[in-house]
């Protein structure tokens, strides 16, 4: 009877392993399911061990056997647990009664590795071997490791056949009596000091090997004998750069670039070598490498500004385009900020490449490029910016106008003036603000002209208010005169609109702190129009307070 029972229990174990494997792939370690599934599977093992002390699975390609009974079968290529073991040469797997909960967890982790998807240098057997399970034993078929059948026999035969003629045993024997006696190898025993030296050396050895390898690669450069050798060196330096970026080790990348730069700057080095080494710099700015850098920046690891600045300083203008590309893909604000800073630095080397970003299909990228061009702020940058004011996206136009305002060069005024006719109110107000920040006489007259325009009167109150606010940047006599005039103006037609205008004038005078306006404002404070009254009142408060 028991025979059937133990097979049933073995099947339950297999079943539990399969279930656990699924669960492990689905849930993180912190999920309560995770712990429960281990406990469940362990219970199945314990039930089996009620019958026997050891559980042995014989492994075939698509089947597991327990004794002569099949306990698992799957014809599938995927998710086939028998094949999972079989393909790496595992032929038998035995669990001992003492197989612990912890061991089971470790075992399940191995079972969960997806060798097709994950890049691992270990196979199942290596993983089992490294874990050194106390209560798992396995049998492996190693024959698949070698291509040649029975190398042993042929090698041994051939080695035995080697003897050229009879050996000379008798002569050896005779000579033995003539030779001097054994010279004792005076073995100096190991001292504590030896051991400590060794321990220290081993500790030191644990460090990253990249620096050493770089030293070697540069030796290869110095001792290169052919073009091919130079190509190799460049290739390896590139690989080292990529490896370091992948590991977020920007300091090492900087180190590589510094060393490379040093050689390039060495007058004794030939131009040809310099040309080769220049390729490393292009590589650093290539699309793949910038993309990797972007991923790293996006990972949220904190990076010192100093490090990044130095890193960027090694980049060439070929990095501009890739940076623009990733600018629209980055997920975190600090990463974007860093890329923007990089582009401000690099853009100066090649405005034209940077400006290509203005035609990017992603409005937010265009907006960023505008910001960058604005920061670069030279004449060429302004020329590109001016061309962007007609961008279809309001958000972009807004950014250009702001940038133009910050640039403030003479050439931008005409463009801004045109922007005052933009169909979007927010663009018009932005333009006004941009003109305000330019603060030149010419800018003033543009605003003043606009405010005095009869059509402007019809604008929305808030827009008008914004314009008057900008006007307050120039507390000049002509402006004050204009405002006083507006304030006094009475109208019987379109009275409401006129009152709005007067309110704006009062507002602006208040912002300027114009004392001369006080008598007039006192008068208006008693106006019948509540709206006007309030603006006058606020302006008075402001002016009196300033005083």
């Amino acid at each position: 009877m028991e025979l059937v029972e133990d097979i049933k229990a073995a099947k339950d174990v297999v079943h539990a392993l399969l279930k656990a494997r699924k669960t492990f792939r689905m849930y993180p370690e912190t999920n309560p399911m995770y712990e429960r599934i281990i406990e469940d599977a362990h219970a199945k093992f314990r039930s089996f061990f009620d019958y026997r002390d050891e559980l042995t699975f014989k492994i075939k390609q698509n089947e597991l056997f327990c004794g002569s009974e099949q306990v698992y079968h799957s014809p599938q290529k995927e998710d086939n647990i028998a094949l999972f073991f079989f393909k790496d040469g595992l032929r038998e797997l035995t669990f001992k009664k003492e197989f612990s909960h912890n061991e089971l967890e470790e075992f399940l982790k191995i079972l969960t590795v997806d060798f097709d998807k994950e890049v691992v240098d270990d196979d199942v057997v290596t993983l089992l071997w490294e874990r050194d399970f106390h209560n798992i034993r396995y049998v492996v078929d190693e024959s698949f490791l070698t291509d040649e059948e029975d190398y042993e026999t042929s090698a041994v035969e051939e080695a035995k056949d080697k003897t050229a003629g009879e050996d000379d045993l008798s002569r050896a024997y005779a000579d033995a009596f003539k030779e001097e006696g054994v010279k004792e190898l005076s073995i100096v025993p190991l001292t504590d000091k030896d051991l400590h030296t060794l321990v220290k050396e081993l500790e030191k050895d644990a460090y990253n090997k990249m620096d050493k390898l770089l030293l070697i690669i540069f030796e290869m450069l110095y001792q290169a004998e052919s073009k091919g050798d130079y190509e190799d060196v460049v290739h390896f330096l590139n690989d080292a750069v990529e490896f370091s970026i992948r590991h977020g080790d920007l300091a090492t990348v900087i180190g590589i670039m510094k060393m490379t730069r040093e050689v390039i700057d060495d007058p004794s080095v030939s131009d040809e070598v310099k040309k080769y080494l220049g390729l490393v710099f292009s590589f650093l700015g290539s699309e793949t490498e910038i993309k990797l850098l972007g991923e790293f920046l996006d990972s949220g690891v904190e990076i010192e500004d100093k490090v990044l600045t130095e890193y960027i300083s090694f980049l060439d203008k070929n990095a501009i385009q890739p940076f623009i590309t990733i600018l629209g893909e980055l997920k975190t604000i600090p990463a974007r900020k860093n890329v923007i800073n990089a582009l401000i630095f690099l853009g100066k080397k090649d405005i034209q490449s940077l400006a290509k970003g203005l035609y990017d299909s992603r409005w937010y990228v265009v907006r960023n490029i505008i910001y960058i061009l604005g920061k670069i702020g030279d004449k060429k940058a302004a020329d590109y910016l001016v061309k962007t004011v007609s961008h279809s996206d309001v958000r972009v136009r807004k950014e250009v106008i702001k940038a133009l305002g910050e640039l403030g060069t003479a050439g931008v005024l005409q463009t801004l003036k045109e922007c005052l006719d933009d169909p979007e109110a927010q663009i018009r107000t932005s333009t006004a603000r941009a003109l305000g920040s330019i603060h030149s006489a010419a800018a003033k007259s543009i605003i003043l002209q606009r405010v005095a325009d009869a059509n402007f009167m019809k604008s929305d109150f808030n827009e008008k208010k914004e314009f008057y606010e900008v006007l307050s940047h120039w507390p000049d006599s002509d402006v004050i005169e204009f405002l006083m005039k507006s304030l006094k103006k009475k109208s019987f037609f379109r009275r409401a609109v006129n009152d709005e205008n007067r309110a704006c004038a009062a507002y602006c005078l208040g912002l300027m702190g114009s004392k001369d306006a006080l008598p007039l404002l006192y008068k208006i404070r008693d106006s019948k129009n509540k709206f006007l009254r309030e603006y006058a009142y606020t302006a008075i408060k402001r002016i009196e307070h300033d005083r």
Partner: protein
Amino acid sequence: MTGKGKEEVFAGAKDIINQLAVIIRTAAIHDPGNIAVTTAVDKFLALLNPLIASEGELTLELGGEFFYINETRIRYPLEYLPNFDFLVREFKKRGLGSIVFKDVIKAVDMQTFFKAFISSVFSQTPFETFSEDVGNISSLNIGKLRRVKDEAEVGEVDIRREVKKSYFNAVSYTKGVINKIKSGEKVGIKKAKRVVEGMVDLILEQEQLLVGMTAIKDYDEYTYHHSVNVSILSVALGQRLGLSKKVLTEIGLVALFHDIGKIEIPNEILNKPTSFTDDEWSIMKRHPFWGVRAILRQRGFDAMSMRSAIVAFEHHMNFDFSGYPRTRKRFELDFYSKIISLADQYDGMTSSRVYSRIPMSPDRALSLMMERAGKQLDPILFKFFINMIGVFPVGTLVMLDTKELGLVYQSEAMFLDRPKVLVIINGKGEKVDSYIVDLTEKAPGGNFLRTIVKTMDPNKYKINLAEYLL
């Protein structure tokens, strides 16, 4: 019912052994009643007693260079190495092989034990004196040092066959992989790992047998054998340093490919029966560079390939940088490079195929290396190397004081100068069917039955080791 597995139980074992060493060191300078000693003893018992309680009985045993607790070999981190090594020597001095803790131990008994332990070293017959002094402690027994488990008990023939199979398997794999690399094929590292893991296992269990396999040099395709031999010798040396299995695998892998740069050297040069010309030498000397190139081209950059490339570059530079390549910048040799270059030099010197065309007998090679220690070779690692390979390595032609002539067949971890010898000419000077003698065997009077009196070069007499040792 998630009781502690064995692996957890034994995780603390290394601390027990370490603490034992601490006490003996402390007790050697202080009076046994001194607080330093008693505190150390208390700590020792706090570690030991729970284990005795759970295991019932605990046997601490010295086997070769390693400690076993209840037959499980105890591994330890390198910072414990000085203490472990110290303890091995202290055990050996007294001929002490094992301590059996039969029951939970009292502090007072332990103090008696240590007092006896310390004083026994001054006795003519230390083990006997010690044994007598601790005879009254009922909770523990001590046992005499015996040689490493005799293979006769566990089917020596089977083990030898397995070791041989493993060795040739490794060579065959190496041959395949080197040829693939040579033809530009990409090869993964999974299989290489498996092969080296197999060797690491064998070295942990049958160190001397696998090391013995490296003594035979008469293969046509020696380059592949050389790679495997260097790998075996490096791992064996590494295990003497107490390195972990994982690190040993890494060393073994790196060693396997140390000469990969030679794929660029034409076979006519490599397999040339005569000495190299100057031009040929300068080609030979490029192989460290080519090694770096081959490895980085194959694998790109990862932890393993970086290690590998470094060793490929450095393995001929020498401890004092007298070798090649010469470099512009100052170098510090990698630890792996030091280990592997030792193994490489030894295997190279004793073969006719690697650098020199005239092979050296193993014992000559060792004495030459002895002269080089501190110059071309790391002197500390060399001490470990000699301990591992024996004063008379396998393959040495020896004359015994019984006038028997033979070949060293298998080194003995415990007695470096007393290996097993395959006698081929008996005491009367007659060629005989070879038989094996064990030089650790003593006559009833206590004297050794046989001792090596002379060593000679088997090459000089065209003795084919393969014929005798395979």
